């Protein structure tokens, strides 16, 4: 008898598939990682593996892999292949492939002899999972350094074996050769295969991001795979149906659960009539605690039926949970902020506005927008043998592990999360919630429980990107220079949810757990390198009446505030350009050329480069906006927007067709010039940028969470429309720019690219609509009816 649950066969198959020649099972038998990382108990007990009682008493089965040990990151097999263990998750942008490129380059082993295991809490070091577009920018560095260190150690071993100094050795594709005598050679596998490195790494401040050995990373010029575009390894199994996703995992004895959500926000559970589901075959249990209700059945379709059929008596709250979506912005403007950032002030904006030749004022509005993943949230939890394993696509698997352990009051080392592919997890999604629910129910039932939300539940109850209102003023001097900017951003973001926190996940809220100090939330200010001598930038947060158990709970959505803030900021710059009767590109170039004090990472030069490259590629004709509308039904125009995220700078230009009769907007062409430093995989990067732009285009044209005063009414793909195939641009041009003043420098850094392209796209579209029609849209989304109304009001 083995004491702990095996990884399901299907999962193991996936791992084996990724592994070139050595199965996970035999790897664990032979590798050092087993000893280093699983001192208490093996992950996958082999036939002969017994877990010693003492080990169980000493600790749980899932201790953290120690990131100070080289063996936790890299295993080299006897057949001269390598497996990389990294604490990130790949949401579909191909970061796993990029990690392999970076690490195989530093290790000097062929890319196709490597595999990458990601984000499983007891297998891979805790790099936090995904978030903040930091996979390549931040986490890529320790990966490169540990791979370089492994190469150094292997060279040392070869030096001892051959009795020659390291300098007299050459390494190529995992084979070390004595320069003077090429018959003397040894492979990495021969040197270390089946053995441990036993090398301790250092990490300043005990921060995993600082993990390093003695070796230095290679100069850019010596990297062979970095900059090439090997195909993503995860794509073939995604198109032939062979990949096991988190949603596919099945375990013996597994049951299916569905939630029964309160019909309106803040409703209190009064009673449940369990007789209403007595006729459901295979009903296992109706579970309820506080306002959390779920049904558990042997078969999935019966769980769905039971959740629909269960009669629950709810009591509505006496006061409205929130204003309706139609009244939202008025409510936000009149609310007293719950928090306010220290205003960011340069110069004397009030004086500059008072003395201006021209002052422009504008207000912008951005509604709540949802993640609305293509698959509703899901997770499977296995409670066997006093441990808890959760199979999940949550991008922050480590946080999920910590949160569930706390929620269930289990020792952390008895809980693990096996990360698997899933629907897009662009931030804080309900995947977090489903993981907790599955674990809670599994503990209640004592059997593996698979939870999946239904579509209406997902669209209505998943976390939302915060709504924003903006109030902006700008001043031009007599020469048409932008001399003052007064920018006020206000976000409905109070009690913003963190990731996987045991007192903020939805199940905890419904059970009545409350933290004494809700998270203050965040608004943001523009990210630009414009030289504007007088500025005041204020970011405030306001709260809706209901902050707990609400479907308008906010969580990070693919660059939490960037698309909203950049929509307002870059729309307004366009308004100032129009007021100055200046060309929108020239107006921006002038603001960028004037210089600013902060120029870390040469961001100013790189900003100029992306604006110029985008304009040249587009074939931008220099003239002010708007252009004179033609007489036909289709009005065309172009708009530009620029911004940065971290050190990634970019410019998007949109070309639109606006149908004067229907109000329909088609973005016919998109151009993006994007500088994220050293590019690891250009083709994967292009698709990531493209996906980000189109996601943002969907947010620009369609997406808005609608609600009455007690519930969200956007709950499926009809009531919550998004971009479709009909909206795809006819042409997309992506320019990967290297605007560094010394583009060939050997230490060119790699920056993040997961979210930057979402930021400028909405403004580029708004600016293009203005160029085409002369009508400025200041409220997102630009659905047909709203555009038509605006055109009519303006007499276009």
């Amino acid at each position, binding site marked *: 008898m083995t004491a702990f649950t095996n990884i399901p066969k299907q999962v193991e198959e996936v791992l084996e598939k990724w592994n070139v020649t050595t199965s996970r099972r035999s790897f664990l038998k032979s590798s050092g990682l087993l000893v280093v990382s699983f001192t208490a108990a093996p992950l996958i007990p082999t036939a002969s593996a017994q877990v010693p009682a003492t080990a169980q008493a000493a600790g749980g089965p899932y201790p953290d892999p120690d990131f100070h040990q080289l063996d936790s990151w890299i295993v080299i097999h006897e057949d001269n292949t390598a497996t990389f263990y990294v604490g990130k998750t790949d949401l579909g942008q191909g970061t796993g492939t990029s990690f392999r490129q970076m690490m195989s380059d530093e290790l000097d082993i062929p890319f196709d002899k490597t595999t990458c295991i990601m984000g499983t809490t007891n297998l891979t070091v805790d790099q936090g999972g995904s978030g903040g577009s930091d996979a390549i920018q931040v986490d890529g560095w320790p990966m490169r350094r540990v791979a370089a260190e492994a190469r150094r150690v292997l060279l040392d071993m070869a030096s001892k074996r051959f009795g020659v100094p390291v300098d007299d050795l050459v390494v190529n594709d995992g084979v070390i050769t004595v320069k003077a005598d090429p018959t003397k050679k040894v492979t990495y596998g021969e040197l270390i295969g089946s053995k441990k490195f036993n090398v301790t790494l250092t990490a300043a401040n005990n921060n995993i991001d600082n993990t390093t050995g003695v070796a230095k990373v290679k100069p850019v010029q010596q990297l062979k795979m970095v900059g090439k575009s090997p195909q993503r390894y995860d794509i073939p199994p995604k198109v032939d149906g062979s990949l096991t996703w988190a949603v596919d995992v*099945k375990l013996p004895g597994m049951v299916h659960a569905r939630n029964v959500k309160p019909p309106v926000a803040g409703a209190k559970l009064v009673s449940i009539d369990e007789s209403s589901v007595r006729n459901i075959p295979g009903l296992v249990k109706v579970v309820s605690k506080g306002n959390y209700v779920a049904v558990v059945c042997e078969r999935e379709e019966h769980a769905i039926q039971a959740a629909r059929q269960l009669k629950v008596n709810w009591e509505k709250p006496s006061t409205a949970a929130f204003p309706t979506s139609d009244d939202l912005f008025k409510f936000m403007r009149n609310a007293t902020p719950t928090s306010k950032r220290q205003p960011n002030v340069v110069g004397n904006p009030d004086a500059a506005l008072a003395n201006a030749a021209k002052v422009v004022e504008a207000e912008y509005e951005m509604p709540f927008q949802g993640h609305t993943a293509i698959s509703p949230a899901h997770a499977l939890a296995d409670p066997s043998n006093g441990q808890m394993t959760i199979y999940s696509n949550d991008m922050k698997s480590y946080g999920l592990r910590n949160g569930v352990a706390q929620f269930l009051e289990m020792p952390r080392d008895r809980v693990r999360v096996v990360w698997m592919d899933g629907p897009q997890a662009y931030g804080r999604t309900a995947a977090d919630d489903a993981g907790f629910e599955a674990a809670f129910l599994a503990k209640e039932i004592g059997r593996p429980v698979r939870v999946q939300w239904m579509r209406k539940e997902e669209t209505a109850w998943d976390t939302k990107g915060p709504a924003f209102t903006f109030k902006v003023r700008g001043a031009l001097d007599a020469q048409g220079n932008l001399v003052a900017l007064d920018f006020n951003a206000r976000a409905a973001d109070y009690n913003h949810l963190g990731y996987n926190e045991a007192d903020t996940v939805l199940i905890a809220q419904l059970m009545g757990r409350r933290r004494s100090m809700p998270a203050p939330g965040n608004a943001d200010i523009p990210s630009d390198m414009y030289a504007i001598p007088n500025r005041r930038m204020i970011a405030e947060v306001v709260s809706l009446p209901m902050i707990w158990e609400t479907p308008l709970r906010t969580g990070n959505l693919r660059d939490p505030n960037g698309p909203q803030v950049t929509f307002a900021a870059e729309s307004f710059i366009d308004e100032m350009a129009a007021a100055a009767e200046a060309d929108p590109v020239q107006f921006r170039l002038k603001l960028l050329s004037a210089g600013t004090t902060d120029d870390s990472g040469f961001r100013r030069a790189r900003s100029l480069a992306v604006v110029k490259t985008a304009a040249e590629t587009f074939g931008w004709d220099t003239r002010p906006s708007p252009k004179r509308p033609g007489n036909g039904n289709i009005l065309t125009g172009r708009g530009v927007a620029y911004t940065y995220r971290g050190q990634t700078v970019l410019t998007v230009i949109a070309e639109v067709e606006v149908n004067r009769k229907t109000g329909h907007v088609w973005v016919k062409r998109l151009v993006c010039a994007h500088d994220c430093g050293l590019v690891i995989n250009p083709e994967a990067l292009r698709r990531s940028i493209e996906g980000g732009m189109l996601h943002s285009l969907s947010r620009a044209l369609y997406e808005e969470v609608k609600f009455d005063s007690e519930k969200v009414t956007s709950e499926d*793909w009809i009531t919550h429309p998004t971009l479709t195939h009909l909206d795809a641009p006819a042409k997309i041009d992506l320019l990967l720019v290297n605007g560094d003043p010394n583009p060939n420098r050997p230490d060119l850094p790699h920056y993040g690219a997961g979210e930057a392209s979402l930021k400028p796209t909405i403004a580029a579209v708004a600016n293009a609509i203005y160029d085409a029609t002369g009508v400025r849209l200041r409220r997102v989304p630009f659905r047909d009816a709203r555009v038509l109304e605006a055109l009519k009001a303006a007499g276009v």
Partner: protein
Amino acid sequence: MSNVTLKVNGKAHTLDIDPSTPLLYILRNDLELRGPRFGCGLGQCGACTVIINGVATRSCITPVSTVKSEVITLEGIAKNGKLHPVQQAWIDEQVPQCGFCQNGQIMTAKALLDKNSNPTDTQIREAMAKTLCRCMTYYRVQLAIKRAAKAIASLGSNRSKEVVA
């Protein structure tokens, strides 16, 4: 519960199930197929698409009792170990981001190309319009469909050359 016989990807299965059960759950939970996926259960997104009688069909809203012909799933379109040209085009074009919806994209595209091997841009857009992708890979999907159409055409011309020879 009653015995239902289903032919899926060339194999017949007899199952003791409620015949009103949507086909999707039978494919996923009883026949262990992973291609068709639950996206909405409302027939709105297409993630669950299978092909029945040449028609791209939403298995999440298709009661198993109404299925009278063979069901083809994503797992069933490769032939003799060779990927279908649509699947190959998806790899060559590196279409998926997360990939969760791509079953629907691929199966809907295959059903389109089976009927119309050389669709125009507008025909592609219209045929694919109701197959949703939250990663917004629409542009790449459309490029891949054109690539697949070319590959299918060249297969066809090779075949006719062989016949002539």
